[in-house]
């Protein structure tokens, strides 16, 4: 089966600009996650969707980050405006159900200058 797809793979922007990342989960997976992984650290959950509803966004910086999964399939994560500390790899993952194994995408590496 095809894995989790993410685009773009790399993005370089200047601070205060906006950026969006896209994720397409494995077909049939109801749960979708966005993680932020800063260099030298483990992934940190930003937001979890169950179908098109948000399950957990407690660690999402809502003043600048937003995410949606309108049709319960693919998802977009946006940062507006970006700060230097947002430089990280943004990982998308999906699972069949909330407690199942998570499958990760290749990630988007964001550099904010």
């Amino acid at each position, binding site marked *: 089966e095809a894995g989790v797809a993410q685009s773009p793979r790399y993005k370089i922007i200047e601070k205060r600009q906006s950026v969006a990342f896209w994720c397409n989960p494995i077909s049939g997976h109801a*749960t979708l996650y966005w993680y932020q992984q800063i260099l030298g*650290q*483990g992934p940190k*959950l930003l937001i979890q969707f169950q179908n098109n509803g948000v399950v957990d966004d407690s660690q999402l910086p809502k003043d600048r980050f937003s995410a949606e999964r309108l049709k319960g399939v693919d998802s977009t994560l946006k940062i507006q405006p970006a700060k230097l500390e947002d430089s990280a790899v943004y990982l998308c993952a999906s699972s069949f159900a909330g407690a*199942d*194994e998570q499958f990760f995408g290749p990630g988007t590496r964001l550099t904010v200058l």
Partner: protein
Amino acid sequence: AQRVTQPEKLLSVFKGAPVELKCNYSYSGSPELFWYVQYSRQRLQLLLRHISRESIKGFTADLNKGETSFHLKKPFAQEEDSAMYYCALGSPSGNKLTFGGGTRVLVKP
């Protein structure tokens, strides 16, 4: 609050030697623990989870609730085990994962 600590940033061992990656967690409930691995230029993937009690690629991990640890072990390391390893703690409600900082394993020939 959930917390996962991996005290070693880097472990360097020779091929055929044992390797043990330490993981300690902080959680008040009944934990679900996982080890994820990321090989060079590959995606993060599940290696094993404590409830399955399996040995995957020769690796085992035992949950010690008294010491709040979930160390990963392999008796004879292989060069293909060189990778980044992350310990993760799952919430019981919906598999919200809290990851440790990771340990890079380098197996030398």
